[in-house]
């Protein structure tokens, strides 16, 4: 069972409170701080009240606990089975770790149980030793804030060397690819890991002049749709991963405003086109012009 109280944020919060109480006393102020950090926005009052009223007989009025040890919650069978499943995933090779699971643990699922049917065929090669080595080097460099000298093969098959500060690894399930998000290089803020030829820790100082944000280039798109052929559900679900607002305009008529990164504009364009006449872009004019342009070219194909 997934929905169980042992996985609740309250149990985590109480274990953190007890963790301190076995070493020392905890006062209400500290309990409040822990609840704010580990539980929900409205959790502080119920946690505080339960402790004060001794509803949970774990913390005494003087802030001590009758418990003798720091709480150490064993990993459940469900958690071990899930770990076993991911240990069988080919992407697990990217992480230099062994969960040390008991041998008799059955996986919760295997590749036989599920199938991703629409990811692209040219995903990264997780079996490639060089790729794995570079991945792990990048992972370490992000944690240590170490600059990297990276040679990539660009779209024109030319080798390009750049020095970057690695910020984060971005993964797309659709592309089945990792991209390195970086700062410090205006020409290589996003690097496909699959295009990296070599990667080494930069020897020497490296200053990132400006902390560039990757998502500060948002654009908005407004589209209207009529709920025919189940368009409403399909469109809303398809664009659900963006920041968005939706309005009902009439009985079957809706408006959706989506924020997207401008570097993804072409992708947005084809995603909108995929819905055909079920959606109608109403703003901005520039985006409408791009659609019109594609439609004109299509019309000239004389299907």
């Amino acid at each position: 069972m997934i929905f169980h109280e042992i996985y609740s944020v309250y149990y985590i919060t109480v274990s953190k409170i007890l963790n301190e109480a076995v070493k020392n006393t905890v006062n209400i102020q500290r309990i409040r701080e822990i609840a704010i950090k580990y539980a929900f926005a409205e959790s502080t009052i119920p946690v505080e009240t339960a402790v004060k009223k001794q509803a949970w007989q774990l913390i005494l009025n003087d802030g001590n606990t009758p418990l003798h040890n720091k709480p150490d919650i064993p990993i459940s069978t469900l958690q071990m089975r899930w770990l076993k499943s991911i240990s069988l995933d080919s992407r697990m090779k990217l992480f230099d770790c062994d969960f040390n699971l008991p041998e008799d643990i059955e996986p919760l699922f295997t590749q036989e149980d599920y199938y991703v049917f629409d990811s692209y065929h040219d995903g990264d090669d997780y079996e490639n030793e060089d790729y794995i080595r570079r991945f792990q080097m990048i992972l370490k460099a992000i944690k240590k804030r170490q600059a990297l000298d990276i040679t990539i093969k660009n779209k024109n098959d030319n080798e390009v060397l750049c020095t970057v500060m690695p910020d984060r690894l971005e993964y797309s399930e659709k592309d089945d690819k990792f991209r390195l998000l970086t700062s410090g290089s205006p020409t290589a803020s996003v690097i496909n890991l699959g295009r990296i030829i070599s990667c080494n820790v930069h020897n020497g100082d490296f200053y990132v002049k400006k902390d560039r944000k990757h998502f500060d280039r948002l654009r908005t798109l407004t589209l209207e749709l009529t709920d025919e052929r189940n368009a409403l559900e399909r469109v809303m679900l398809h664009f659900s991963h963006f920041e968005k607002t939706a309005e009902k305009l009439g009985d079957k008529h809706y408006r959706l405003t989506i924020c997207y990164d401008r570097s993804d504009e072409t992708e947005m364009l084809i995603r909108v086109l995929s819905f055909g006449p079920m959606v109608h872009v109403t703003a901005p004019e520039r985006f409408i012009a791009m659609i019109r342009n594609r439609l004109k070219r299509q019309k000239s194909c004389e299907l």
Partner: protein
Amino acid sequence: MSYSELIKNFDIIRDYMRNFYIYGWGSRETYDKKSARTYDDAKRRLESWLGEYIHYRQSVDGKRVFISVDTRSTVHNPLYYAWKAKSFTDGDITLFFIVLDILHEPSDFLPLSEIIERIDTDYLSHFERPKFFDRSTVRKKLNEYVSLGLLKTEKRGKTLYYGRTQNDIFTDTDALHFFSETAPCGVIGSFLLDRQEAYKDIFSFKHHYINAALDSEILYLLLEAMKSKQETEIIRLTRKGEKHTLRIVPLRIFISVQSGRQYLMAYRRNTRRIISFRLDYILSVKPYRKAADFDILREKLKGMQPYIWGVSTQGTGKRRETVEFTVYFDNNEQYIYDRLKREKRCGVIERIDKNNARFYAEVYDANELLTWMRTFICRITSVHFSNKEIETQFKADLEAMYRMYGVSDSDIS
């Protein structure tokens, strides 16, 4: 009953979260199938759990509350919080920590009577008004911990002894974070992450659908049913909102990373067909009986897969349908050919010449390809469907788009 941010039943909140997240235009009055009180409580809970992701919009007919998440900049799935809000009794939490403290050392194996004695004397007696537990409550809880895998039992003579499950599991936070967002039932990875001390987030995710989190328990039950090769009884909602009960043999989960949907491919005995069911429309899963033919049916599905574009195993006719289209690309548009190759799924790509390529596929339902084919609008030079109705639909949709955006014959240069 007074309000609590914790919940006993996931079903109601699953429905609200889905509506607030996927749609988000409903007002208090829209949710008339439930009481206003239920709506208010659900809204308040979501505000408490999701905070920054809750947005409001005032319109002429009321205030709208919705969940909006840019999943590219949010590195942990916020919908997982709902799974961490299970209610419990005062006794549940008290017993949990005390029992694990009594059985702290892996070598500590104690019988029920001694555990009860120690709970009373070593722990509860310290409190001014101790709330003692009866024997059956403690036994029930101990057995629950055994079934969860937190404790194990050992028989010594006629007496059952309880001890902690010893596991020296090494949990790498990077791997946990990555798979908690990308693997099936990722919320379990998120539970494991919650146990970790502070760590740095290394990963972010693009094209990341988070709504599947709401169907985690359903997915888990189906995975369990497949593992034990069980025929199951499911209750699902139809598009009209009616509840249907049916018996099926679950065979495989099909996941779409382009639409945010998860499907169960299952065999229905009464129609003798393998068909798909959306996981988000399944309300419950119950084991029914062993499916002796599970392996045969799974093999059958495997044999069908080369002809399934998405999840549909039936078109309008009895025969499989064919789809063929050609696209044109300029000399500097090699990436279009690459796109075809990487997105073709069960189709075949043939390079006709330097600037043209043909796609061909034989599938159960050619209708499923229309969405993808439209992404090539501006360069489709020919289409041919064996099912002429679909071809007509494709062309009619194009005409509708021309009208919608005011493209006429005079626009063609």
